[in-house]
């Protein structure tokens, strides 16, 4: 290429070169690491989709406020209302704390599913699917994005712990870890539903119908330890019950100076045996992982 060429022809020959060389680079990498660029390629895909969720989170601060407003309102109104019946206000608010955290991370989990719906509608997803990337990595990236968003939503609630009668204690860091894990499980659930449901309207209805009862029947609002009726059965069958209980057993005592009443930490029991916290967490996370894997298979299938 001579340096005397006009600017226009220079730009054209440079594109010529760049498309040729980049094409060669890709092909070479493709043949060495397999069609999707190997593990490095998968990590790249995950990073791209995770970052996209983060950009969405940062762009949409109104959504953050909305996502926090409803659970906090719920916490303070219900906490105060029930407290006025003569019970211990501070204690009941502290009791609602784990449920509030769970409600807060539910929002981003559903939102991620909705994003998949819109991406499918808008064709963005198809653009991803014709790229040489592993489809499971696409789902993993979206899932991690939703999890991070969930954890970021949980931070302000944890920061407000004092106002809810939960003392600031290093154990809250453990709670943050747990809620991040639960955020992942819920996001995986939302993503799985979004992969299997084609119509955004249906997804909206399904998520709306599933989310509220799941919290209501999880022991987020009332102690479930002694429940024996059909309600007890439903609560024990609801994976979220174990998530709520794990959070409640991990969080610090509401009043360090007085013993915490037994009903406060009475979670779901199996024939008189209370499963340990780690088992409780895996009861939420493992089924979600299985669902996500199945969704990943379905997503990778070419019709």
């Amino acid at each position, binding site marked *: 290429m001579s340096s005397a060429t006009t600017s226009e022809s220079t730009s054209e020959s*440079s594109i*010529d070169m760049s498309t040729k*060389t980049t094409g060669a680079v*890709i092909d070479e990498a493709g043949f060495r690491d397999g069609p999707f660029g190997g593990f490095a390629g998968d990590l790249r895909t995950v990073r791209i989709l995770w970052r996209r969720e983060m950009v969405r989170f940062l762009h949409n601060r109104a959504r953050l406020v909305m996502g926090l407003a409803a659970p906090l309102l719920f916490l303070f109104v219900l906490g105060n209302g029930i407290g006025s019946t003569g019970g211990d206000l501070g204690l009941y608010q502290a009791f609602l704390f784990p449920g509030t955290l769970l409600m807060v991370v539910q929002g981003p989990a559903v939102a991620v599913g909705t994003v998949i719906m819109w991406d499918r509608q808008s064709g963005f997803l198809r653009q991803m699917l*014709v*790229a040489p990337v592993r489809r499971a990595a696409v789902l993993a990236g979206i899932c991690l994005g939703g999890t991070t968003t969930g954890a970021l939503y949980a931070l302000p609630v944890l920061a407000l712990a004092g106002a809810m009668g939960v003392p600031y204690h290093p154990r809250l860091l453990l709670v943050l870890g747990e809620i991040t894990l639960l955020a992942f499980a819920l996001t995986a659930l939302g993503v799985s539903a979004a992969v299997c449901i084609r119509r955004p309207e249906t997804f909206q209805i399904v998520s709306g119908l599933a989310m509220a009862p799941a919290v209501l029947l999880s022991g987020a609002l009332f102690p479930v330890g002694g429940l024996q009726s059909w309600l007890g059965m439903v609560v024990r069958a609801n994976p979220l019950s174990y998530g709520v209980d794990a959070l409640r057993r991990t969080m610090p005592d509401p009043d360090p100076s007085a013993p915490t009443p037994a009903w406060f930490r009475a979670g779901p029991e199996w024939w008189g045996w209370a499963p340990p916290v780690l088992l409780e967490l895996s009861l939420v996370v493992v089924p979600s992982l299985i669902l996500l894997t199945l969704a990943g298979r379905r997503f990778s299938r*070419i*019709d």
Partner: protein
Amino acid sequence: MPGADIAVRTEELSKLYGTREALVGLDLTVPAGQIFGFLGPNGAGKSTTIGILCTLLRPTLGHAWVAGAHVAREAGRVRRRIGVVFQEQTLDQDLTAMESMRLQAELYGLPGPAARAASTALLDLMGLADRAGHVVRALSGGTRRRLEIARALVHGPRVLFLDEPTTGLDPQTRAAVREHLRLLCREHGITVFLTTHHLEEAEHCDRIAIIDDGELVAEGSPGELKAVIGADLVTLRTDDDERVAEAVRGLFGVATVTGPGGVRLRAPDGAALVPRLCAELTVPIHSVTVEPPTLDDVFLHYTGRTIR
């Protein structure tokens, strides 16, 4: 497996949705470095074909190779070697033109410097250099389409698929997009495979294949296909169409069709017929028009109906 001079080849390619045949035994060969148009009415099987060639759909029967790789057995390889512009817009509304390019480059695993160089050069090539910093949301329809084409090229594909690339664009923008595609073909040796239901669009392709009801009905250059019709359409407007039709049949021995638009007949050299018609017909003639065959005539010829 086809050689390097063949961009796309299909053998007996078929796709069933349940029992509905969307595509039936398609045999297609697209030479490299050309603009290939896939013409047919809506629902003829064009999008299904593109879906299979882009590895988004699995063929029920048959085989297809794109840029030397098998679409089902070597999907990853095919994906590396093709660029795709879908019918619906697939840009992220909140990104700038340059960010869209960079995202795509990252998705295809281009190293940073190569990604920067290719993005800049392609925006330049598509006449978008001054829009690099603009947010997609603020761009016009034609500009977005050109950005989508630029984006689809960032990894240096050998074959560019475009599904109805000029739908919804005004004629001027349509011409601009066409010109850019022509440039890609000529200067960079990229094969362009586009679908269209616009006859006018197909006229500008090097080769076209006409598809109807999932079956290939004709293939060739627009000129070759029109040569099959072999005759111009002559339309006469007169005082008495019936008498003229009869006279034409008697004098020239050609079949005529009389309709509200006048008397129509087909003749190999329509223009040469005009003076003879005027000289020999006794009924007053108001007008004579001669039209060369169109692709719509070709479509009518093969399918018995018009594409419109």
